[in-house]
């Protein structure tokens, strides 16, 4: 599979395909440009009598081209943090910047457009639409971007080849193994050529072997194409595959001393 990525990315660099050239630029420099920044983000859920502080002044910076994992035990606010980073939700207090733009006050429809264009989601349970084939699942986000059908097909086929499922294009999710489904989901995330891939416990529903394969694939993607990846997980070993690990406890990132204790 990894071999395939290399082949395809090499092929893509040669072609004048938009995806390839964009990605090539993205991988240029690393470490100074911030793609996503959460500044003192609070999320307070009003449950009637009690108020739950899911996030308490969370500060996170995601740099272009990095592979960041946010690790935390359950109940630490991981999912809420992921919602903020993924523009699925807006904070109660504080600001979220995406490519320097404050998205904290945008409407749901604007957020949807931003998500579609800039963020590629990978979920723990794959979240493929069961009614659609692998290819159609990948075409779906492109449909929401009003891309013409021929282009959508071409893109979907390309990314499916890339994740090594060129022979499974017309299979439904329930005809694929967990590992294959997750690869389809990765392909779907890649199809829109996003700024950031956001992976929420990507190995959580997979056996050891498939999980390891998916992690290898993400690492390779990051290494070869310089894709920015943010991964949320509770698993120390999985988190360790990233370039940088932040630890989230009780809705905030802990300091380095505490982090060393946890890791």
């Amino acid at each position, binding site marked *: 599979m990894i071999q395939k990525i290399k082949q395809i990315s090499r092929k893509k660099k040669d072609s004048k395909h938009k995806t390839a050239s964009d990605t090539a630029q993205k991988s240029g420099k690393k470490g100074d440009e911030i793609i996503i920044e959460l500044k003192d983000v609070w999320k307070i859920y009003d449950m009637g009598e009690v108020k739950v502080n899911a996030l308490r002044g969370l500060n996170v910076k995601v740099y272009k081209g990095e592979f960041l994992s946010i690790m935390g035990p359950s109940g630490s606010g991981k999912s809420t943090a992921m919602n903020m980073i993924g523009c*699925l939700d807006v904070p109660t207090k504080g600001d979220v910047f995406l490519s320097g733009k404050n998205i904290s006050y945008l409407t749901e429809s604007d957020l*949807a457009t931003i998500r579609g*264009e800039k963020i590629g989601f990978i979920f723990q349970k794959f*979240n493929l639409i069961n009614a659609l084939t692998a290819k159609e699942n990948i075409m779906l*986000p492109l449909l*929401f971007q*009003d891309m013409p059908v021929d282009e959508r097909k071409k893109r979907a086929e390309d990314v499916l080849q890339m994740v090594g499922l060129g022979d499974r294009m017309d299979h439904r999710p329930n005809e694929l193994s967990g590992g294959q489904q997750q690869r389809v989901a990765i392909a779907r995330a890649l199809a829109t050529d996003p700024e950031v891939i956001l992976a929420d416990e990507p190995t959580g529903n997979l056996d050891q072997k498939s999980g390891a394969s998916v992690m290898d694939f993400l690492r390779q993607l990051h290494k070869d194409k310089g894709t920015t990846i943010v991964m949320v997980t509770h698993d120390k070993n999985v988190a360790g595959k990233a370039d940088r690990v932040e630890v989230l406890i009780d809705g905030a990132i802990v300091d380095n001393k505490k982090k060393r204790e946890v890791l």
Partner: protein
Amino acid sequence: MIKDYVRLSFFNLKRRRLRSYLTMIGIIIGIAAVISLVGLGEGLRNFVTAQFNIVDADVITVMASGTGNGPPGTGVVNPLTQKQLDRINSVNGVDVAFGRLIQLGDYLFNDKRGFTYIASIPAGEERKIVYDIVDLKTDEGRLLKDGDTLRIMVGSSFKDNDESGKRVEVGSKLEIEGHDFTVVGVLEKKGSFAVDTTIIMNEEIMREIFSEVGDDEYDVIVAKVKDGADMKAVKQDIEKVLRKERDVEVGEEDFSVETPENAVKTLTSTLSAINIFVYIIALISVVVGGIGIMNTMYTSVVERIGDIGTMKAIGARNSDIFVLFFLESGLLGMVGGIAGIILGSGLAYGLAAIAGANLGLDISASVSPMLVILSLLFSFIIGTLAGLLPALQAAKMNPVDALSESR
């Protein structure tokens, strides 16, 4: 782009095939009811119109009737007379008027007795006019001419009279009211029950065999109106003349003066009343069907919260989700409509064929393209209306909440 949404919606319906069919039943029944009943009604109207269309539109028919006063059956019909015919002939606007005898009589053919209308044809110039007005032509043999005694023409339905393998044809002998007649012509099929089952003979011989009919009496007076004359005015003038001649007051007429248009109008208004009733029943059924669709769509939204969350995460705007569910609901309505149209048309044509065969009439249903198009449109609209609220609910769903269903 919309094509993809339609495809996606269609796909979702197909996946829940049984539920989709059950949901559509209300719409199917409603649309099938409209199509079958309106189709049958329209067919019936065409049939009846054909009965009247056998005479030219510029013909007025006068018949004697009971006075309507007193108990039914007691009124003796005061027949039309030669004198009244003469008066009608002199009414302004009447081109020519003549009388005909129409009597119920029995006949014997191949040892089988039948009962039918026997009508007379006047002699001379008037014969041509009758042939012209009713547009009588023969399929076999020839038309009657002056001097034909004991000779008859028969309507086209006599050709079918072959239960024993023997049918009436040119040269067949029929015994009518005790006299032997020879068939000289079989008439072309007119699609009119009255003409197609009638035996026609010359007036002279008819007066002879139906001796109870007075010498100067007629059963029907047919008046051909001059080109360009006002039918209504001529009709009123004839009524006036007859009232005077028969000595009756306005409102107590013991005769009827009918224009073809008049008769068709009466029927049409009756059918319209029936149609309104059908439309109301069908409307109720379709609305109930719509509520069924709404129910299904709400269930569908709840079932697919996870999908909605996923689609929102990967960039679906509220409007995309709305369109998806809205179309799905509209499709449910429309597919139901199509099924209803097929079922309804089948019922209409089937029932018409059965009724036609049993009654020996040439009735066929008539489902117009307009009716089909309107039914389709209506079922689609009901479907989309029913899907409006569920689709809005789906569209407005918070992506975080929706996603939490599948995380």
